[in-house]
């Protein structure tokens, strides 16, 4: 039998501020084996971080038996800290220290000295690829490199157990893949690893899985078991005639369908248990559509376990009037960028980016961290002035009459920028107020918003204390109070669990039906699949543009005929690197 690095039974935890009956963790059991990656997956607030902190000896559990590397984490904390490596969610590397200084600090703290230190540093620097950046300040590293440095600091002193709390958040697919590879090789070397994540595609790759929801473990075992359970229930509907969003909505309304998402041109559906085939009536609405059974994913199983995704009806969109672009606005270019360039000193963050967005389209800006997608996005909604080039929304030049342009756009930022200490009603009232709504119009509008987003019972709840899903609804409601024809979304579902993400896109899809044009930045592949067209931005330039399936086709080659979107993304970026290298080589 393999050795256990952690054995947890009957663990419950309650924070002092929690009421009776509320538990951060309730009767949790967990086994962490050596030599494998144990995934700890679940939505925001499921209790992952609390569990990690208890294992790291940083919190005293309310009840239960906890044994980590053979020690009681609270009583033997001092010994435990020398044998367990813990990387918190926001790993605190010192931004004003260099990579090497950070490493040396952690080596000193863990008592790794002399020849031992030299060999470990050699290994870690090669391992993480940080060697070229030894002298760089922590604050000047990209998101991915910061996580790698965090990992390296945690690994100094060769811990027996590695606890990683959401290492993949805020990291682009390429860095995530690197990070995963590193941790995998550590596990293969015999280390016990716990990887906490809200992304189920990450969890799916783990050797052992502990799926959590609402403080409880809802599944414990191998991810394959869950996938197997779903076999024969996942289908792709291809060649859908007409609007695939309409089809998805109809499908989600069907009682045989548990879950559905858009994947490029196709719609992916999960059928209810025991349902062998799709309803004929549903298919009748899409003559000629082709149904193909596909490989199940862990996400399908999760949605199934928590009782299915949203039903596809967006009350919001039903009550919202259709928006129409005004006369004289080119419907093929309601948003347009022309040779948009932005320089910060010597650094060109956006380099002659040009695109047009059609009315009623979802347009995605995709790219790794620091590639320039945020810069482009900020120029398009008037938060940043272009160095050269032009940005127009609804035919209005942002440079000339930004105020008039802004009245036409709704904006939702990554972190749901609401006033956390004000209640739902006051947030809504404020955002309507600054867009000029007042009196009866405002009251009616607010009542409709509260109703259609199910925010009524949270009316008086302070925005900062809303559950994540409701925060997101509120942010969207605030952005939509003035019924803008354009919607700008900045990484709207980053770090968000699958159910909340589906609900969000359901609203967006419905809005698009009403004629709203959406522009979204993301480095999250599932989100990209919802877009009608995507501009792939890398190192400041737009390196590819087109519908998601078109990009997948561009990336396909002999080795990989049908790449996933993530694979396509990585390949296209890799090709661009090669092309620039050879171009650079020729010119030099």
């Amino acid at each position, binding site marked *: 039998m393999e050795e256990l690095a952690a054995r947890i039974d009957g663990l419950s935890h309650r924070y002092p501020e929690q009421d009776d009956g509320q538990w951060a963790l309730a009767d949790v059991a967990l086994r962490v084996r050596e030599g494998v990656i144990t995934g700890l997956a679940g939505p925001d607030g499921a209790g992952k971080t609390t569990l990690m902190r208890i294992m790291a000896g940083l919190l005293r559990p309310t009840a239960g038996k906890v044994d980590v590397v053979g020690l009681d984490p609270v009583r033997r904390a001092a010994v435990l800290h020398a044998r367990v490596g813990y990387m918190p969610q926001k790993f605190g590397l010192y931004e004003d220290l260099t990579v090497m200084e950070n490493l040396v600090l952690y080596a000193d703290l863990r008592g790794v000295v002399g020849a031992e230190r030299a060999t470990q540093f050699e290994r870690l620097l090669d391992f993480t690829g940080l060697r070229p950046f030894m002298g760089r300040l922590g604050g000047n590293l990209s998101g991915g490199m910061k996580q790698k440095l965090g990992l390296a600091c945690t690994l100094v002193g060769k811990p027996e157990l590695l606890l990683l709390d959401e290492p993949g958040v805020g990291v682009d697919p390429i860095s995530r893949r690197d990070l995963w590879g590193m941790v995998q090789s550590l596990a293969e070397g015999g280390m016990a690893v716990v990887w906490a994540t809200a992304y189920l595609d990450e969890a799916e790759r783990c050797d052992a899985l502990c799926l959590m929801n609402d403080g409880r473990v809802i599944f414990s075992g191998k991810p394959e078991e869950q996938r197997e359970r779903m076999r024969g229930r996942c289908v792709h509907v291809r060649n859908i005639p007409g609007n695939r969003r309409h089809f998805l909505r109809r499908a989600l309304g069907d009682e045989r369908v548990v879950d559905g998402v858009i994947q490029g041109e196709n719609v992916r559906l999960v059928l209810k248990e025991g349902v062998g085939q799709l309803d004929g009536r549903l298919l009748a609405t899409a003559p000629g559509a082709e149904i193909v059974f596909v490989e199940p994913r862990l996400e399908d199983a999760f949605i199934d376990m928590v009782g299915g995704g949203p039903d596809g009806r967006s009350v919001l969109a039903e009550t919202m009037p259709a928006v129409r672009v005004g006369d004289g606005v080119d419907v093929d270019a309601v948003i347009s960028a022309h040779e948009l360039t932005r320089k910060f000193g010597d650094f060109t963050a956006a380099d002659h980016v040009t695109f047009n967005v059609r009315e009623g389209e979802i347009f995605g800006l995709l790219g790794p961290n620091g590639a320039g997608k945020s810069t482009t996005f900020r120029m398009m909604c008037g938060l940043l002035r272009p160095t050269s080039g032009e940005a127009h929304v609804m035919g209005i030049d942002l440079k000339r009459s930004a105020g008039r342009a802004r009245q036409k756009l709704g904006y939702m930022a990554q972190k749901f920028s609401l006033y956390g200490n004000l209640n739902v009603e006051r947030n809504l*009232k404020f955002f309507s107020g*600054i867009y000029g709504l007042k009196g009866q119009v405002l009251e009616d509008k607010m009542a409709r918003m509260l109703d259609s987003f199910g925010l009524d019972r949270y009316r008086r709840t302070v925005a900062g204390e809303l559950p994540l899903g409701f925060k997101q609804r509120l942010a969207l409601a605030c952005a939509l109070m003035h019924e803008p024809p354009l919607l700008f979304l900045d990484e709207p579902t980053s770090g968000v669990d699958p159910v909340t993400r589906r609900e969000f896109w359901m609203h967006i899809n419905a809005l698009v039906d009403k004629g709203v044009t959406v522009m979204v930045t993301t480095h999250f592949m599932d989100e990209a699949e919802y877009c009608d067209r995507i501009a792939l931005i890398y190192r400041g330039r737009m390196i590819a543009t087109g519908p998601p399936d078109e990009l997948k086709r561009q990336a396909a080659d002999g080795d990989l005929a049908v790449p996933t979107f993530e694979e396509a993304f990585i390949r296209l970026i890799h090709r661009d690197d090669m092309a620039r290298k050879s171009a650079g080589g020729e010119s030099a």
Partner: protein
Amino acid sequence: MIAVWNRIVALIVKELQQLFATKTSIRMLLMPLLLQLAVFPFATTLEVKEASIAILNEDSGAEAVELIQRYHAASAFSDVLYVTDAASLRDALDGQRALLAIRVPPDFSKKVLAGTPVAIQALIDGRRSNAAQIAFSYIRQVTNDYVGERIGFSAPASLVVRNVYNPNLDYKWFVLPSLVAIIATVSCLLVTAMSLAREREEGTYDQLLVTPLTPAYIMLGKAVPGILVSMTQSSIIASAAVFVYGVPFTGAVWLLLTATFAYSLALSGVGLLISSFSTSQQQAFMGMFSYMVPSVILSGYLAPVENMPAFLRFLSAVNPLTHFISMAKGIFLKSYGFSAVAPDLLALLAISSVTLLTAGMAFRWQTRT
């Protein structure tokens, strides 16, 4: 125009709601108010009360005893330390057990009775020269009274002192009107400088910038709540000064409100300027700190402006607090009318226009990049 006004009202309402949203924020507004109202009038006094003097009496005659009893009875001295030799007198002064030391010579009574001039030595602790000098003038007063009553010596004339505006030189009458100004400073800066920095940190600032509001309106939306809050707090202190501490109020209420408004306006400019240079609440806090401390020191509250070197006098003249304190004191104690406050009001308006315009330029410059 009305449409724009509605939008600004929405901003102002939101700002006020945020201020009173959490216990912490209410505490931040109230704590300095109560603390300063309770501590300042009592602690910040240059009055000499309860001072201690040391006396070395080398004369056992009745005249010396009489004089010393008079010193003892003087209300300013709570503690009289009798010593027996010169060394202990020096120790009492060195050890700061006495502010002032008096040495009555052995032949004092004899000389007084004989009518020959005699000198009493008074040693003053220069480490606390202000208090000691004031104590010394009390001693001189007592001595002169003694001479007049006891010996019947009279100078050809005498000095009659009348303290106008504050007959008993009650220090609280001086502190409280100034406090109205100082409290207004803290709250106004807190609202203007800190709240904008918080919006930056929390990302809501971007959210504001993508609305049709221009930076000028956002500034206005921040300045008005700051002005409202500081005017409210000033009114509370002013009422407390009159009704709790019994400070006379001889001027017009509307004039004090006008003065407070002009001061708050100038301050909101300063606050916005600080916020335009700070990216985090911590920086805004440090900016506020770096502005407030010199501003209070150079306002004439702690020490008269005319004692400062020319450069600091100039800083004091462009310091909004100087003007407001002078108006507040005047309106409270000296029944200032409009013409009396006009120069200070004008100065404040001039300072406001400079700070607001600079802040506006800083904002414009920032949102452009």
